[in-house]
């Protein structure tokens, strides 16, 4: 296992390098110019040129790339071209709201969806199964901003139980954080509950048809014991994959939810930076999210062997 872990971590390095080169080139090939944002509507071509010079954007591509990589290796992600703030500081400010919302969403989703999926599989083709599947289809089908607005209308505007929008850091005000996190987490959870419940149901149904389950039942084991001790553990492998990738997805792009609930997270920072062509920030964000994907995938793979003893590394 430790060898496998080290091998996977080392294998991530070339992946990240390829991502870095790809992102760097892609951004430079995309039309748009941060100098034009900084200079504004009245800028003359000469002024734009001066600003580009000052930002190093006139240097040859390979020099720009090597400068960036060189700084990166020293832990320096650079400075935002637009706001002039250190990129790491910007990303750190915006990372926590997204991580917190993602954690709450995934936790809530697992708590609700796994029992739903188990119930649907256990009561396969009964009304329970139909209700779970209907809910699941609705969760997929209704756009996330519609669910968001409906929740705002009901809980924030009509009932006035929670604020419409905003974010407070839990370290500063845990109550304020919790009450503001409820609606965005519920909104996002509507999708992930649907996704995880479907996956749990399908995976469990597959396992329930396996020989060893039949054998367990034939031995006279109680249905609950068959379900939880034998079937669910083995069915958990694909469910873990969905949970892990769901978490990574939540970290990398919940732009709509962040906009609807005015959460200053990574999704909004990514979109704002792309529109402003703020190269250092976009590069750092993509590297960060790629790193999260690599780490999550590694954790998922490692969890397989814990869940299914047949899997060995």
């Amino acid at each position, binding site marked *: 296992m430790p060898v496998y872990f080290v091998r996977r971590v080392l294998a991530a390095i070339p992946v990240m390098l390829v991502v870095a080169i790809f992102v760097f080139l892609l951004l430079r090939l995309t039309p748009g110019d941060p100098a034009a*944002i900084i200079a504004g509507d009245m800028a003359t*071509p000469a002024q734009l040129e001066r600003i580009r010079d000052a930002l190093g954007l006139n240097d040859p591509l390979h020099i720009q790339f090597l400068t960036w990589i060189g700084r990166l290796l020293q832990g320096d992600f650079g400075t935002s071209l637009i706001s002039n703030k250190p990129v790491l500081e910007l990303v750190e400010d915006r990372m926590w709201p997204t991580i917190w919302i993602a954690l709450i969403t995934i936790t809530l989703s697992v708590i609700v969806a796994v029992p739903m999926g188990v119930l649907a599989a256990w009561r396969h083709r009964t009304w329970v199964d139909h209700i779970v599947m209907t809910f699941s289809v609705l969760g997929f089908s209704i756009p996330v901003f519609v669910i968001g607005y409906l929740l705002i209308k009901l809980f924030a505007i009509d009932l006035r139980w929670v604020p419409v929008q905003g974010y407070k850091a839990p370290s500063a005000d845990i*109550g304020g954080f919790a009450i503001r996190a409820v609606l965005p987490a519920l909104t996002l959870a509507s999708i992930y509950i649907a996704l995880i419940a479907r996956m749990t149901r399908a995976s469990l149904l597959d396992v329930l048809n396996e020989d060893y389950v039949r054998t367990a039942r034939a031995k006279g084991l109680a249905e609950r014991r068959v379900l939880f001790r034998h079937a669910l553990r083995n069915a958990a492998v694909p469910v873990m994959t969905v949970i892990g990738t769901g978490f990574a997805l939540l970290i990398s792009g919940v732009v709509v939810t962040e906009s609807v609930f005015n959460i200053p997270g990574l999704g909004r920072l990514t979109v704002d930076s792309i529109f402003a062509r703020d190269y250092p920030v976009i590069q750092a964000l993509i590297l960060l999210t790629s790193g999260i994907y690599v780490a999550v995938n590694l954790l998922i793979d490692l969890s397989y062997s814990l869940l299914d003893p047949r899997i060995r590394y």
Partner: protein
Amino acid sequence: MTAFSTIRPRGLVAAAAVALGLAAPASAETITAVMHSGLRVLDPVMTTAHITRDNAFMIFDTLTAMNSDFEVTPQMASFEVSDDGLTYTFTLRDGLKWHDGGEVTPADCIASIKRWMVRDGGGQMIADRMESLEATGDKSFALKLKEPFPYTLQAMSKPSGLALFMMPERIASTPADTAITEYIGSGPFKFVPDEFQPGVKVVYEKNEDYVPAEGPQSWFSGAKDVKVDRVEWVTMPDAQTSINALMNGEIDYMEAVPVDLLPLLQGVDTVKTDVLAKLGSVTIGRMNFLYPPFDNPKIRKAALMALSQEDVLTALIGNPEYFQVCGAIFGCGTPLEFADGSETLTSGGDIEGAKALLEEAGYDGTPVVLMQPTDVVTLAAQPVVAAQALRAAGFVVDMQPMDWQTLVTRRASQAKPSEGGWNLFFTNWIVPEVSNPLANIMLNGRGDSAWFGWPNDPEIEGLLGEYASAADLDTQKSVAEKIQAHVMENVNYIHLGQYNSPSAWNAALTGVADAPFPVFWGVGKSAD
């Protein structure tokens, strides 16, 4: 408002929420405002972005200021102009302090003016004529010119474009193409750097040491009397969220309410709506003078004739209460309101006339590359309406959708339209930015050094020179009228009318004032 009728808080959950202070409005000493965009660039000399200018007016003060009658008034300093019009003497008023406690000195102001002169068009005109800029005492300094330039005080007091803000000498000594990193001014509010999140939130505290200037508050002049402890600007990318938050008392002020969403707020007891920037904005079309077909003045004129302000404004704003068909390139409601030559624009266009002129000009079907920004709501409609009108007149139009950032980069390209260049794009300005011939950047006719489109127009340059040296308002007006007629005939740009953006605010706010852009001095908040 049936759709948003409220069920009052009740029951344990509501009580708990209120007890925690979670759904309650912000404290009475803080105004929370949603501005038109997020603040990212803080140096007002580096960019003309409106949000950067708005931020600068909170933190920095100006030497002189423009009031709602377009008059220059003393702000940080009184001024005297010598009889020969060559020497401008400024005397700083007593009690001016920087936010770090230092006293405002003539050296600070001189450094600020010199840095601004490098970047601003008006500042460059002054610099071209400047003989010296030196301190003449502990509280005074003098600007000496080689030749009279009556526009000097106007340029130094204009509220938009690159406005002239005063900074301490150590900050103002930063090269003009390098952004400042300290935001210490002498203005009515102090910037709180620890709470600044670019694009998300800006926090200002009341400057307790601020001594308001004399005279009534009017636009950016007079007393800047701060009545709250803090102002917080929060960015909300979604207008519906802002509206909900305003109705719920979570924010106090929304600078720009989309006209189509305004009915949601009208009739809500706790919210007031009105147009505060009474002069509003103008929308314009700019052609590229370097390449066919718009290198031909007759073809430019044919395009102008095809367009109708009402059609464009209807598509852009919708509700006629919030737009105005206006033929004056310096804006309706300004001292230079002339409408000569704008008849077709204001009366619905003249497609037949445009067709005839196009034929007379020998238009050969060269496609018009029209750049269409799809991500800016206030600029997405104009290209569509214009393309339809131009096609009706006989133009071949190649409309190319792109994001605004791509557009602003591409418009700087002087390549052929078929090789990555362009022929036509649209943009908007607030009226004060175009209300004066010397401030209106689109009138620059200096070819390669002119604004995007690069017209080489010696005639307008001559007229601008005449305007710059006009000694009195009557002479200025007569020159401005000639400029209006010239622009309509030569089509330096196409003026497509004027529109207003309504604002909305919590009814608990007092003293919300009319101004071309939001000012937070003079605004109080009652506790109930």
